[in-house]
């Protein structure tokens, strides 16, 4: 009941945002933030649930963006179809990672990083398809059943809609047989196998789902920015997505949302600090992560506990747990 109220309030705030902040530039930033939310939710499934440290999410993001842009630009494919195909293309490309899913920890991170670099080089060098370092220009605005999402505000609502759907989808997955299997794998592989879970299969499926999310985020980005350049999809972007997840709190879906908002909006907010802004942002990230392992999402219960403890210690005599020490 309480969570339903929170949900309505949060959705209400997101819906109200573009009416409160009507500046086109800020609407653009908020769109990028919502796309970041989708990316972070995908990575949360990998890192937070299955314990798979991927530094290659930007590769799937890039694949989705380019597939969607090329389909609409060159072949005049309708946006909705290009959008879905972008997700499918990214998901299929994640199958290339199947041979390496059994790698652990930092090895897996480095392998996915390598994958990211390869995809970046492909985007950069296959000019015939991707436009190379010139990038792809004039990507059309999304058009669904004749309605063109040309204005910043309509684009914002499209991104919001997709982000909400992805959030609800992830929530269903986390609380399902699939999600439990992922959590089990991350906590004890031997015990998970003894329960009948095929480790490699489930890790591969997890990559597939996260890649699909990154792919559709890429599609949104392509049609929102209207211009693509390979430099948007370097491993820097992958690390940015990882920062979102860690700052927000590993294993928490609301955390992924908050983390994405902070990572995208904060540097823009600090823009008035000029050259200092990235340093300030870095300090903030370190502070947020160092504050507590659970990130921002982990803070709420701690604060609650603190409050409860204060009350106990104020009236120790009334404690029902008296008796001999």
């Amino acid at each position, binding site marked *: 009941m309480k969570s339903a109220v929170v949900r309505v309030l949060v959705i209400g705030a997101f819906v109200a945002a573009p009416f409160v902040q009507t500046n086109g530039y800020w609407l653009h930033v908020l769109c990028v933030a919502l796309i970041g939310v989708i990316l972070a939710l995908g990575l949360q499934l990998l890192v937070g649930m299955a314990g798979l440290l991927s530094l290659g999410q930007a590769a799937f993001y890039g694949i989705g963006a380019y597939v969607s842009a090329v389909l609409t630009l060159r072949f005049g494919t309708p946006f909705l179809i290009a959008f879905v195909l972008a997700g499918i293309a990214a998901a299929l490309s994640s199958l290339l990672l199947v041979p390496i899913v059994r790698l652990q920890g930092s090895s897996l991170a480095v392998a996915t990083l390598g994958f990211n670099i390869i995809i970046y080089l492909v985007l950069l060098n296959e000019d015939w398809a991707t436009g190379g370092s010139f990038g792809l220009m004039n990507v059309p605005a999304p058009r669904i059943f004749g309605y063109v999402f040309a204005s910043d505000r309509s684009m914002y609502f499209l991104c919001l809609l997709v982000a909400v759907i992805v959030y609800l989808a992830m929530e269903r997955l986390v609380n399902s047989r699939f*999600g439990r299997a992922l959590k*089990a794998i991350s*906590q004890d592989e031997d*015990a998970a196998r003894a329960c009948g879970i095929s480790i490699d299969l489930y890790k591969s499926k997890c990559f597939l789902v996260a890649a699909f999310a990154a792919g559709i985020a890429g599609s949104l980005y392509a049609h929102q920015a209207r211009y693509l350049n390979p430099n948007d999809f370097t491993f820097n972007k992958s690390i940015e997505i990882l920062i979102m997840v860690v700052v927000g709190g590993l294993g928490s879906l609301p955390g992924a949302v908050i983390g994405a908002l902070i990572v995208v909006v904060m540097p823009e907010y600090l823009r008035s600090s000029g050259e200092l802004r990235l340093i300030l942002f870095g300090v903030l990230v370190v502070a947020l992560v160092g504050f507590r392992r659970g990130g921002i999402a982990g803070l709420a219960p701690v604060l609650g506990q603190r409050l409860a403890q204060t009350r106990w210690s104020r009236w120790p005599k009334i404690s029902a747990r008296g008796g001999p020490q």
Partner: protein
Amino acid sequence: MTALLRTEQLTCRFGGLVAVGDVSLSVQTGDVHGLIGPNGAGKTTFLNLVSGHIRQTSGAIFFNGDDLGTMPPERRAGAGIRRTFQNLRLFREMTAIENVMVGLHANTQSEIFHSLMRTKKQMLEERNIAEQARESLAFVGLAGSADVVAGSLPYGHQRLLEIARAFVAKPRLILLDEPAAGLNGAEAGRLVGLIHRIKAAGVTIMLVEHHMEVVMRACDRITVLNYGKKLTDGSPADIRDHSGVIEAYLGTKRGASRRGADRHDTQTSTPMEARHAAP
């Protein structure tokens, strides 16, 4: 009587060490079969071989008449072999009931698509496994702890939770690896009762245990391992009186035991085990 589990010359070497050597035994359907022996006798390795967590060097394992070959543990779990671990292997950050629900993984089908769409079948399956998990928790006596995070349960309850996770799937065979380790006398007594109830539910049990009182009260048959070899097997009464068993646990007076001849003796039994072993 038919053998549910049979091993033939089962051998597992780690480098030069023969952890399990030429062990042939059979576990009868419906029995509680004990596997005992001093530390390092190869009991846990034997369980790992049966559950598939370790591959044998040579020899064969037959389950219900079928050669398990190189079948991976997740498929053996599906075939009806479940286990617990010596050093608690719970999913510590999940709740007790979630742990038990994971135990039903091999018995359920819902895929990503079904969960996303919340199909009728998936909803029904979720409700079913939650109910089965609750029953299993109640069966081991943890009905009140369903929503407690596994890692924060008291030690004895964590042991029980592992058994609930293995039992929930109603397997043919449960391998219990030292379920009494760290339990106090009263808890160990209750464990014996639980083992009898699991048996009554039609599940065959293979029990590795150091706690001799538990072994003697719970088991129908016992196999004794020593240095990876089968020393003997028989009923609890036979084992109690077997001179070789006492020797394996306590050693002989002069130290000129059989095992001393061809091996360097690095593992002597602890006083604790000796106390349990002494009839």
